């Protein structure tokens, strides 16, 4: 059996001792989990090691740690895989508490401030639409499939641990809470979608504070892809509810779109004032003044010529304009969600495999983002949720075997 060196970060605020690393040797098969190794060390070598866990099967979300610098579930990380990307020597596995959170003891962190409080902040329950029907709400099936990805969250905090905006701005609402927000924004039964979006757009630490670093996608053991949910929130807020937030998030997005439509290539000199509402928008003035040194610096170093800054060298071809017009004028936005619809090849190669990768793959047509409440008439097919529609239908029907809460099950952890 291979021998691993478990290098644990130890810290107990009560002792007054500085944080330090301690090595423990464990003999375990490579397919065993990092959590099993920690528990073995705790049972046999040092009973004082602090670690939180419960299910040991990637379901409860309590064992979030950083293994070799990457956040994830200790019970869902194999020893051999962890050892392979170790920079610390052969079979050395460094386990540390999650980041962005205060440490209670050793590997146990306090998730209250950066996680639970933020989750409560997004009103994580359904605000029922009136009138409440006597029996169940009838909703488009596709709309519910659309939110299954966020339902898979087990609140482990791995995404929060590695979030790069959170590192600099602890007030950022954060990946887990924003993914949770989409759970309700995307739910057609919710009465407060517009209010929720307005709130999260206007908050300077809300949806426009995400720096698009993909860390949360990388960290999440459940394929929730919080960043993708944040982008969905932005699409809803900007395109469906036309929320013009004070953080310039929506303006920046629209300035960018306008810019590419017009120039084909990005024209930065135009982008800046447009992001703040155009050269003559009052909001643009202070921002432009503060960016002036940057532009002057660019001019001075010869990065940008005056001509470049003022004149357009590129013009988008009519083809590009046509594509913009065609796609933007659709009544519903097309979105292909790999989590839900999968890759048809994976399905063809191994129809039995539903554990690996992101999700239960279903041969489904592209997901049509469920239109917002005010959006014009929905295609009729979307309204008939229960009958499994033929796969070729271009509507939003998805195979009824959509991943339910908590799925896909992580069969390979034990």
């Amino acid at each position, binding site marked *: 059996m291979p021998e691993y060196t478990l290098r644990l970060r130890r810290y107990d605020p009560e002792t007054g001792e500085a944080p330090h690393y301690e090595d423990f040797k464990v003999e375990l098969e490579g397919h065993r989990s990092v959590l099993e190794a920690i528990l073995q060390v705790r049972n046999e070598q040092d009973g004082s090691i602090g670690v939180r866990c419960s299910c040991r099967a990637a379901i409860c979300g309590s064992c979030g740690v950083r293994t070799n610098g990457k956040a994830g579930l200790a019970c869902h990380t194999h020893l051999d895989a962890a050892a392979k990307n170790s920079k610390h020597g052969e079979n050395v596995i460094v386990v540390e508490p999650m980041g962005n959170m205060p440490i209670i003891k050793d590997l146990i962190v306090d998730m209250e401030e950066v996680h639970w409080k933020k989750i409560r902040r997004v009103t994580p329950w359904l605000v029922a639409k009136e009138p409440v029907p006597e029996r169940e709400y009838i909703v488009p099936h596709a709309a519910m499939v659309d939110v299954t990805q966020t339902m898979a969250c087990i609140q482990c905090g791995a995404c929060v641990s590695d979030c790069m905006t959170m590192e*600099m701005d602890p007030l950022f609402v954060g990946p887990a809470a924003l993914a949770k927000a989409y759970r309700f924004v995307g739910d057609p039964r919710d009465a407060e979608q517009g209010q929720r979006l307005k709130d999260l757009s206007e908050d300077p630490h809300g949806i426009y*504070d995400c720096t698009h670093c993909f860390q949360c996608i990388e960290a999440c053991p459940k394929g929730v892809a919080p960043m993708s949910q944040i982008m969905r929130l932005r699409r809803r807020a900007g395109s469906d509810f036309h929320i013009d937030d004070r953080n310039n998030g929506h303006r920046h997005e629209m300035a960018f779109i306008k810019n590419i439509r017009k120039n084909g290539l990005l024209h930065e000199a135009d982008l800046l004032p447009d992001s703040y509402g155009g050269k003559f928008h009052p909001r643009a003035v202070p921002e432009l003044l503060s960016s002036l040194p940057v532009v002057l610096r660019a001019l001075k170093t010869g990065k940008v010529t005056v001509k470049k800054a003022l004149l357009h060298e590129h013009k988008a071809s009519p083809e590009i304009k046509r594509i913009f017009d065609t796609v933007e004028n659709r009544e519903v936005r097309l979105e292909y969600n790999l989590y839900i619809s999968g890759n048809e090849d994976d399905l063809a190669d191994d129809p039995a495999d539903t554990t690996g990768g992101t999700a239960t793959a279903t041969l489904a*047509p592209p997901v049509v983002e469920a239109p917002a409440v005010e959006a014009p008439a929905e295609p009729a097919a979307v309204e008939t949720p229960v009958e499994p529609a033929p796969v070729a239908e271009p509507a939003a029907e998805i195979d009824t075997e959509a991943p339910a809460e908590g799925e896909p099950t992580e069969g390979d952890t034990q």
Partner: protein
Amino acid sequence: MKVAYWPGCVSRGFTPELHGAMEAVAPLLDLELIGIDRASCCGAGVIAEHNQELADTLNARTFALAAETPGELMMNICSTCQGAQSECQERLDASAEYRAEINTTLEAEGLAYEKGLVTNKNFLWLLVEEIGLENLKKKVKRPLTGLKVGPFYGCYIVRPTDRLGIDDENPRDQYMQMVIEALGGEVIDYAGIYKCCGFPIITMNKKASLQMAGTHLADATDADADCLVVPCPLCHLNLDLQQPMAAAEIGRDLSMPVLHLPQLVGLALGLDNKALGLQRHVIKPTSVIDWSTAVIGSTVEAGW
């Protein structure tokens, strides 16, 4: 080798020295760059955030245009292009039905995207996977001996790992280190290698954005790096152009030169500083110039 070349927008706008350096280095690596003329911006994630189908259609068009060139594959010089385009390609390749939908829009122009139509590689990947490190080593005229270089990958080229094809066979998240070593330089390990420069939130949360840039630059300074090297012009904007503001934000003096990858390669292949546009940086790469003049006996004229 012929490649369909996608320089992106920023390399021709705010960081023209990148495009210039790439053009100067290409012949030394036996690369023939064939521009993809009518292509549009990849959207840098922002178009996808606005409308996924729009981003997928524009990039499907770029791929189709690339396939029309005699290039063996498509090459970009921008992490953000790589990430944004890989994301679109992943969706386009996943479903025939979705592709058909996209192709309906492209049809009018006589273009179509087929599954796996092009392989799109950042210059970094191409260096290691197509040109090869051994081959690269042979071309080195002026090894970067003693130059301490901190790699800065940025986000789009390393995450998510599966989409970007990072695995045991292709450890693409180690390529910068490998290239620096192949060029004879010394790799500096510091906390910011895989962090975000903060560029995407510069208009929304300037403080946090500049803090990110400042922190990584300060970490590299503390690790005693002479310079950083980036495969992404957007990272360069926040790390170089904004460096004075980032320094003010974190309350520290900073003067960390930031080189584009083709500039670093060009230096080692013997090109002079001017040809590589080093004078166009906001932070003058004095340490790099000092190094290069020391190496070749001060024949290189600094030029500023």
